[in-house]
């Protein structure tokens, strides 16, 4: 009887399935999504590269003048991320002292080329 009741209830209720990509899937605040680098905030400390479990972050030479807390400094390096190697654990975001590497609140893409870079 319980099966019949549930069937009837479902018959008169709205479909549960979300027709992605036509309809968007709701993404909660704090979702660990697509990785992104905010270049002007990066101080080139390499912490993100050291904590990355997938070793997808490498530091490349890049001498740029940036402003940190009102002071101007010259950073020596900046990170590049191998996009499809990233496992989105969020450790880089957690350990970054200047919020320069973030996990965006949007779904990450999928692909097969492990060498695609995020700069």
């Amino acid at each position, binding site marked *: 009887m*319980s099966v019949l009741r549930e069937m009837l209830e479902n018959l008169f209720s709205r479909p549960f399935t979300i027709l992605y990509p036509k309809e968007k899937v709701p993404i909660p605040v704090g979702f660990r999504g697509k990785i992104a680098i905010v270049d002007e905030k990066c101080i080139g400390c390499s912490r993100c590269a050291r904590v990355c479990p997938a070793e997808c972050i490498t530091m490349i030479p890049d001498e740029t003048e940036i402003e940190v807390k009102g002071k101007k400094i010259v950073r020596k390096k900046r990170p590049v991320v191998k996009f499809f190697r990233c496992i989105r654990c969020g450790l880089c975001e957690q350990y970054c002292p200047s919020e320069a590497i973030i996990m965006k609140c949007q779904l990450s893409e999928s692909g097969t080329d492990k060498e695609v870079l995020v700069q």
Partner: protein
Amino acid sequence: MPQVILPIGPQHPALKEPVNFKVIVDGETIVGLELDVSYTHRGIEKAAEQRDFIRVVPLLERVCGICSHAHGTAFVMGIEEVMQLEIPPRAQYIRTIVAELERMHSHILWLGVAAHVVGFNTLFMWTWRDRETTQDLLEEMTGNRMNYGINEVGGVRRDLTPGQITSALSRLPKLEEQIAKYVDMVMNQETMLLRFRGIGKLSKAEALKYGTVGPTARASGVDYDIRRDDPYIAYSEIPWKVVTDTSGDVFGRTLVRIGELQESLGIIRYCLEHLPEGQIGVPAPKVAPVAEILSRYEAPRGELVHFIRTNNTDRVERIDIRTPTLANWTSVTVSLVNQNIADIPVIVAAIDPCLSCTSRITILSERGRKTAEMTWDQLSEYGRKSSRERDRC
């Protein structure tokens, strides 16, 4: 009657993961079973030895997709004990909430799979629909549907906001209502009863003899649960009871899992309502002193054991993971005997096997072409020999 060997796998349309069964049959009746589970060896233990305590946690979470929090927590609990860290109660409660949500999603998923293997696909669809509630809660609390990344050595990485707590509490009654419906369906539906009752019997003595763990053991009357018998995180402070059954068949295992679903829901509600205030972590030292530790955790499928050896560095010297599925496989070879061939999927599914996390060792012949077997004595001797060699170095 002549006996026939019926090979199933390692690649087979009915299998979700690679495993090789050699079923010895006499007509339609099963006489014996030989198993080979070593098709998914990933060398994850060695990979874990190369990473420091920060980078190893996301790796260990990926030992198993469904019990990811179980592996992460078992490991960090072990390291925290070695480092003698006092973890704040709020962090322990958050770990418990995630652990129980994980158990719920695992058991609901299992119920769907069990219904699917007996051809009751309607229940499969309904259970998986309602499993989305637990997945959404996990996603909101941790940032991901799977591989939650909530743990770190010293505490948890994210706090729960009052909004998240209220939202979680508001969605629990609907889930409770749905679970009650499943209990009713499982107890009364002829489809389930005919395929589950009296199938894959395992007596209490057999369950103990073969070292069965988790819901499989509890369904045979073994009153044993790590959460109660060796309490960790916040379980000692929470009122709940261990669910057992005495029938020992697939139906019993279903009842235990459904009972655990209701218990887990109660634990989550209690934790959310009584979440202590305070810190969510303490700073952890970078290195762990020389120690050997056995960390035990009641994963959704049963007792999970992490053996950890540290050596005064920032990484483990050795980690050995004994997953619950490995402990339960031997019980399958016993409970399949004298059963019908058509019941293989149900009996195998009843232990909720997870193969990718089970495979730990593959012994290859010298040319590397064939897999080999080792007796217990040979394995002990091999262990002693490698231990002596390590000490000499």
